[in-house]
């Protein structure tokens, strides 16, 4: 008895430049009440499998093999048969709740429409069902929320509405494609709980597509690992995550940054003597950047948003400070204040001992020459009209105008070598590079002037885990070599724990708590930090189950 059975599925996309095989010979099964996680890096074909299962692939896709959903064949089925299937037998939850909902109609009406599509009920009954569904997915005051428009809801609430629509007709199969990737960790934990409860209630089978091993450990019963369009390993979650059989799975799991959550892992300190040691030294050294009581407001009048309130933080020479927090906590704004891109409404910023607000013109520019910047988006970080060499050379052109072309070329080559990129890439355009290569070009540009401070705003969040691992290694190694200080902004506590000596936790624009990384993340002083850490799923199903039940026990007491 299976609710989804895929046999020998192959999908090929025909494009202007020829056929691109996306999925090859994939066979999967999902039983009622079971959750199968489909994991892999970008381009592995996991989303293509999910779309194929609902018959939603683009026009240029050629599909072969068999897909049956609750006994109905999907491959080659006509649109009307698929329409009957969708929303009743199989339903979907996508990554971006903002685009999954119609912005112009009320959420209650959107849920009611799904109900009426498949059941002969009156308008009033459907509206009542919608309110009931909103209650089931944990939306507070469902009667009132039913008449809200999507833009009036938060991201987490919107995803709850999407889930309400997905479970409206008690489908046999729920397909969730990265359902929590766009959400904060605390919201992610709630949404995963909700999905788990709704699936368990009605015996719905779930096909979960994700790149996040923590989510897999938290939620899945079985796992299928995809690589280049093929399934390389399938098995129960404990088996695959704890005793991976395939080399690629091992490689993938080794690359995942793991949040150390338990005290006895003190041995970890001993494993990294050089980092633990270097953490002590800079404590006495001069601060390279210091924010004191910084407040930033955006907008005017009654629409003013307080982005930062009395934030103080210091980065000393040679040390790495992790700036963590959920979205809209002000962490990027704080980094931009430190860079002088955002002028604080009150408070002061001291960069290398000079007050940034009082330094203008040439002295300000020479001050800023000591700063390197790496931002999040690998695509937007490099000007597509320049070659890699020109991108890296830009700081030299700004600050060392007298430099001759051969000298400049030598410095660029040197910087590219530092980030382990071959000199052959120098003439290429950014479009020809992968995301990881682009971020390393950004890093080379940041380091070409040998800065004393590197500000990295989510430098690896857009990258696959194995690529993230390489980029982080390069940064850490260069920091050891060149000794620059680093302000590292990230939403990923595991990355920060691995990378930073001290951590500053921001919440709603204010510093919630700060301290040495291990102390703060293992014995947080505030309830907020505790919840933040508890919400991060670890990629170990046994440990994660224990944490989840501890959390549930805490919630009931």
């Amino acid at each position, binding site marked *: 008895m299976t609710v989804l059975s895929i046999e020998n599925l192959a999908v090929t996309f025909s*494009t*202007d*430049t*020829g056929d*691109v*095989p*996306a999925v090859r010979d994939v066979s999967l099964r999902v039983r009622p009440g079971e959750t199968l996680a489909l994991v892999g*890096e*970008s*381009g*592995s*074909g996991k989303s293509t499998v999910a779309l194929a299962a609902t018959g939603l692939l683009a026009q240029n896709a050629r599909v072969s093999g068999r897909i049956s959903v609750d006994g109905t064949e999907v491959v080659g089925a006509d649109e009307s048969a698929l329409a009957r299937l969708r929303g009743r037998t199989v339903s979907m939850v996508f990554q971006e709740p903002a685009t999954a909902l119609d912005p112009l109609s009320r959420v209650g009406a959107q849920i009611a429409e799904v109900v009426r599509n498949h059941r002969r009920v009156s308008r009033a009954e459907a509206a009542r069902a919608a309110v009931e569904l909103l209650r089931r997915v944990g939306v507070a005051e469902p009667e009132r929320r039913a008449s809200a428009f999507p833009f009036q809801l938060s991201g987490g609430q919107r995803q709850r509405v999407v889930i309400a629509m997905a479970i409206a007709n008690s489908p046999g199969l729920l397909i969730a494609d990265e359902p929590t990737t766009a959400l904060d960790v605390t919201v992610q934990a709630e949404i995963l709980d909700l999905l788990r409860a709704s699936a368990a209630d009605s015996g719905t089978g779930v096909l979960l597509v994700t790149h996040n091993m923590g989510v897999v450990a938290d939620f899945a019963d079985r796992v299928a690992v995809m*690589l*280049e*369009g093929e399934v390389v390993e399938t098995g129960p979650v404990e088996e695959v995550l704890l005793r991976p059989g395939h080399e690629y799975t091992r490689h993938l799991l080794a690359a995942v940054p793991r949040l150390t959550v338990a005290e006895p892992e003190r041995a970890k300190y001993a494993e990294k003597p050089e980092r633990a040691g270097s953490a002590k030294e800079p404590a006495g050294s001069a601060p390279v950047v210091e924010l004191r009581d910084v407040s930033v407001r955006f907008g005017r009048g009654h629409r003013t948003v307080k982005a930062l309130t009395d934030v103080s933080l210091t980065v000393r020479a040679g040390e790495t400070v992790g700036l963590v927090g959920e979205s809209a906590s002000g962490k990027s704004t704080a980094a*931009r204040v430190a*860079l*002088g*891109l955002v002028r604080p409404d009150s408070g002061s910023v001291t960069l290398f001992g000079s007050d940034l607000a009082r330094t203008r013109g040439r002295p*300000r*520019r*020479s*001050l*800023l*020459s000591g*700063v*390197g*910047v790496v*931002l*999040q*988006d690998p695509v*937007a*970080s*490099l*000007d*597509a*009209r320049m070659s890699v060499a020109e*991108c890296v050379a*830009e*700081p030299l*052109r*700004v*600050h060392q105008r007298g430099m001759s072309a051969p000298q400049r070329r030598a410095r660029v080559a040197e910087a590219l070598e530092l980030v382990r990129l071959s000199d052959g890439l120098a003439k290429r*355009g950014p*479009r*020809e*590079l*992968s995301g990881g290569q682009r971020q390393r070009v*950004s890093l080379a*540009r*940041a380091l070409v*002037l040998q800065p004393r401070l590197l*500000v990295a705003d989510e430098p690896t969040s857009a990258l696959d885990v194995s690529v993230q691992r390489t980029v982080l290694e390069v940064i850490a190694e260069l920091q050891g070599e060149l000794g620059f200080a680093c302000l590292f902004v990230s939403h990923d506590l595991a990355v920060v724990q691995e990378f930073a000596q001290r951590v500053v936790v921001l919440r709603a624009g204010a510093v919630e708590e700060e301290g040495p990384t291990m102390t703060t993340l293992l014995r947080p002083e505030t309830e907020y930090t505790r919840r933040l850490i508890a919400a991060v799923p670890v990629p170990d199903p046994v440990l994660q189950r224990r944490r989840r039940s501890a959390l549930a026990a805490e919630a009931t007491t």
Partner: protein
Amino acid sequence: MTAVLRASSALEPVAGYRLPLRRFAHNRPAVAGLAVVVLFLLFCFVGPLIHPTDQTHTDLTQVNLAPGGARLLGTDAVGHDEFGRLMYGGKVSLLVGLASGVLATVVGTVWGAVAGYAGGWLDAVMMRIVDAGIAIPALFILLVVSAITTPDTLGLIVVLGLVSWLVPSRLVRAETLTLKSRDYVLTLRAIGGTHGRAIGRHILPNSVSTIVVAATFQVADAILLVAYVSYLGLGVQPPSTDWGGMLSAGLTAAYSGRWWLIVPPGLAIILVVCAFNAIGDGLRDAFDVRGRG
């Protein structure tokens, strides 16, 4: 790296620069437009060397001849060869059209880029000036200017350029607003790069497709505008002329059946303006930028 990624990264550089060219080459109206423009340029600037005619002296023995023989398109009321005059007038029309279209685009680009990049009150003031300018019909300004002075070719270029930079400035400002918050511009500013560098090295090169498309439409508009102005007798003065002036001069003659005095310049204006618009449409689709519809 997966097969899919490898394939798509091999595809991207084509999308970078060669694809717009190929798309343009497949756009038939655009290629036809380009051909028409090239032919007219050759006709007006190289033509007089092959078919030299006297366009400064009147020849009262040769007035109002019908087309035929050596006089391909006949002669006008003062004995100028009409075929040669079409070249002679076209020179002025095309020169003034191209130059003032380019001038308008340059002025508009600088204005729009500065306003968009600076933001704040400066942007507000600069764009209100643009709004005010758009509210006054260009033709009205031209009539006032021509009433005060009689412009020569250079004067005409400057005046036309200065009344039509408003639309390109709006387009470039919109483009600048999105480009100035790109990460590479932020990175440059964070390490102390100058505003001039941000605009000159990043924002303008990245809006070049918008600018080129805008310039093409500007040229089409300018050629039409020159024709208006000259038709009303306010353009370049005789014995110099342009297509609009020829239309104006030939109008009375048309009632007495001398069609050859108005049909050729009229057709020339229509063909060239349509050709530039087709090129603009083609470029817009090829670059995939927003422009006028």
